[in-house]
């Protein structure tokens, strides 16, 4: 071959090289992740003249006030409960603290609408309690709809975020700091306020941020408990009126509020470095003796576990058994289970396929593009599900009528929402993959494509499986996007629980709820295993 011909061939290889294909794939994934936000901005700007009137409508202001109030209340109560539990299980001699530590985190994986269902099925009209009290002549119970119910339900399902974060913070706190402060003459209380609390502030902040974001984006609990915040109002506007711009503007406001909370958290985060002087393992932390205080401490743990876990499980079982007596249709259950599973499986596949190029790019060729793609993926994840769903509904109805009302749109929404789960799982494995093995394969005469399929991909398999399992189980629980984007008549476990609870057919919701609880338990188990894998070895 002449040098000229060789050069030409090289040029050809560069244009169609794997690197370029990889970049194109990464750009496509980033574009997909950013689609909802971009579309909402376009949509809202089209109706710019209306914005002012819409924003200042008393109804909108009321929704804003409700959202802020609920977010503040839930964040405050979840922070208090989470901190208390973290401290009790980590730093005191609470009896059975290991057991409490594990079990109090469990409500995290239950979807909020299952919690709302349990609350309503227990205490609501035609609920369990009313049924029991009916023989005594009680026909009305104080209402749990509105703020009190939403507040209680959301607190019970979000405090673990704070607990886990604070637990990690306490673990990272060098006990030598406290010892040093005691030696310098500070009392226990002073040490707590001057050493422990400042150290924990970032951990508490991070946990509280997650709680606030969860509360703002939650649709299941607030819609079932009928408290009018943004997510519910968006759904009402969307389903009740033909004016879709109103829903888009509400969605944008919700996004703005979400962004504001992230900014506030960023701003208040202390920038002082947190470090432990010297390396080596820190000494085990001393535990505080609770003495007589262990009675109220145990009461707290029991109460929280009972409300967040015990009652939902018991109530669901109760209605399930009743449903069995009432002979509800089994065939319908398998059909909705199949719906849930098929949509979730497609989403799992799609998420892992989308995550693959992003992870390879960010680990092998880190740079602006990979950072942008990862940020875009996390931005999609931070958006409330109903906002993503709404954006895709509009987009589909307007530009992609042939895809609208098809499973494709639902899978796209799942992918935008849950891509980071697959990213995290794949990344862990990719980081461990030795790039020299890929080079060794090249040296043995294999083309880049061959190397990818025979060396890279097989080594990534465990991460792909973990990612798929996590996405699958999370999609099973997803409600708002499924509700808005599912094809007509496409009922899933989530939508069944939601619609049955809304109409107080608790027995119909029980079996799907039990299946979801099982799925939740499995996903928690995978998460914990995954966490262990991430520890440095």
């Amino acid at each position, binding site marked *: 071959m002449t040098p000229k011909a060789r050069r030409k061939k090289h040029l050809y*290889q560069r244009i169609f090289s794997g690197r370029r294909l990889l970049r194109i794939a990464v750009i496509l994934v980033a574009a997909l992740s950013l689609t909802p936000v971009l579309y909402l901005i376009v949509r809202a700007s089209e109706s710019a003249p209306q914005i002012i009137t819409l924003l200042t409508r008393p109804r909108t202001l009321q929704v804003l006030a409700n959202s802020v109030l609920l977010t503040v209340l839930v964040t405050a109560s979840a922070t208090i409960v989470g901190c208390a539990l973290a401290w009790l299980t980590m730093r005191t001699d609470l009896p059975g603290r290991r057991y409490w530590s594990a079990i109090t985190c469990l409500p995290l994986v239950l979807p909020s609408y299952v919690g709302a269902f349990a609350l309503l099925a227990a205490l609501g009209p035609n609920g369990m309690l009313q049924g029991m009290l009916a023989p005594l002549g009680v026909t009305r119970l104080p209402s749990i709809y509105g703020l009190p119910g939403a507040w209680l339900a959301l607190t019970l399902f979000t405090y673990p975020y704070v607990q886990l974060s604070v637990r990690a913070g306490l673990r990272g706190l060098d006990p030598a700091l406290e010892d040093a402060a005691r030696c310098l003459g500070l009392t226990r209380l002073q040490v707590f306020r001057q050493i422990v609390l400042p150290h924990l502030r970032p951990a508490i902040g991070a946990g509280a941020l997650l709680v606030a974001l969860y509360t703002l984006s939650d649709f299941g609990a607030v819609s079932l408990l009928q408290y009018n915040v943004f997510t519910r109002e968006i759904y009402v506007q969307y389903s009740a009126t033909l004016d879709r711009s109103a829903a888009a503007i509400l969605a944008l406001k919700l996004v703005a509020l979400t962004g504001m909370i992230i900014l506030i958290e960023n701003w208040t985060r202390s920038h002082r470095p947190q470090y432990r002087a010297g390396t080596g393992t820190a000494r085990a932390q001393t535990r505080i003796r609770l003495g007589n205080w262990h009675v109220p401490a145990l009461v707290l743990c029991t109460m929280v576990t009972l409300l967040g876990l015990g009652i939902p499980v018991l109530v669901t079982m109760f209605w399930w058994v009743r449903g069995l007596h009432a002979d509800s249709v089994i065939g319908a259950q398998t059909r909705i289970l199949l719906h849930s599973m098929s949509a979730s499986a497609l989403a799992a596949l799609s998420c892992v396929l989308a995550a693959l190029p992003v992870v390879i790019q960010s680990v092998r060729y880190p740079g602006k593009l990979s950072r942008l793609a990862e940020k875009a993926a996390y931005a999609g994840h931070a958006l409330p599900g109903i906002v993503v769903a709404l954006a895709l509904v509009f987009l589909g109805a307007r530009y992609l009528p042939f895809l609208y009302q098809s499973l494709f749109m639902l899978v796209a929404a799942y992918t935008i929402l849950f891509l980071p789960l697959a990213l995290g799982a794949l990344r862990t494995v990719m980081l461990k993959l030795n790039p*020299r093995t890929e*080079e060794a394969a090249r040296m043995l005469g294999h083309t880049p494509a061959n190397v990818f399929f025979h060396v890279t991909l097989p080594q990534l398999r465990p991460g792909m499986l973990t990612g798929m399992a996590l996405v699958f189980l999370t999609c099973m629980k997803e409600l708002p996007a499924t509700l808005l984007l599912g094809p007509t008549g496409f009922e899933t476990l989530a939508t069944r629980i939601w619609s049955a609870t809304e109409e107080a057919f608790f027995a119909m919701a029980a079996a799907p709820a039990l299946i979801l609880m099982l799925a939740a338990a499995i996903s928690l188990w995978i998460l914990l295993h995954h966490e262990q894998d991430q520890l440095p070895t």
Partner: protein
Amino acid sequence: MNTPIIACYTLSKAFNGIKAVKDVELEIAPGAFVALLGPSGCGKTTVLRLLAGLETPDTGVIRIGEVEIAGKGYALPPEKRRLGMVFQEYALFPHMSVRDNIAFGIRDRPDRDQRIDEVLTLVDLQSIQDRGPHSLSGGQQQRVALARALAPKPAVMLLDEPFSNLDAALRQRVRREIRQILLKAGVTTLFVTHDQEEALSLSDDVAVMIDGTIMQYGPPEELYRFPANQAVAGFLGETNFLQGQACGMYAESVLGRIQLHTAMQGKVTIMIRPENLILAPDPNGQATVCHHEYVGHSRIIMARDQQNQLLRCRLNGSLPPPPIGSKVSASVQDAAMAYQIS
């Protein structure tokens, strides 16, 4: 020298504006066993990766035999170069058995199974061919990596720090084994190392690389005895550097008149290996013994002369050393290398 089997000329490579390899020239004769020696960060691994095709050179050409495989504007991808490579951490495929690892480079060949058995016998691993890489010891993993690279019968074998991951006790034995295997396979070898003892004891030729350039290239003895400059002299082993005034074939120094290897004039730095310096007990000596270092087979005696300069002398380990504080006179055996001070 007949046509080199692998050669590079004016090879340069920069990473983020920092030049890692500067104008490297290297020619390796067929069948040679060559070491590329240098301190860590000197660019020696980059040279290896450039030859392998895992990096693209900024300038320069690389040839295999008569064929140019990299030059201005193009570089043959690694899979087309047919070179063997053993990586520092072996890079075995964790999802394949030993046998599958070895088969990976010769999948499409009809005589595949026969060749696998051949290399397995060569590296003496028949008994563990069905095990996974994770269950092997470091030495075994290395032999698998070697067998995998040898299987496609490459003309040249590149090894990146092949012995650095082995513990000291194992290293000596493995070195000899690997050299035997590679000689038996009749493959030209270039290996990268930062261990000067390893480079000197194993190879036919050594290229000393410091700061991205090859400072000297030649047989080990030439390098050790007649280093081209002070940096090479210092890197290849302990030395004494003395200031002196050269005048033809000898130079005046604190140790008196020293014979030089080549004729020089003016101010020079004289290089004397510790084993060429003799410290003899002498009550009227100019130097005082200040320190001993016993290293088993030999003993380093350190003494200070009147100018408080430290002199190092290597003595047979079984001989009694002159006591610390005693006076000694120093003399030099053999002609010494000297370097002009500019």
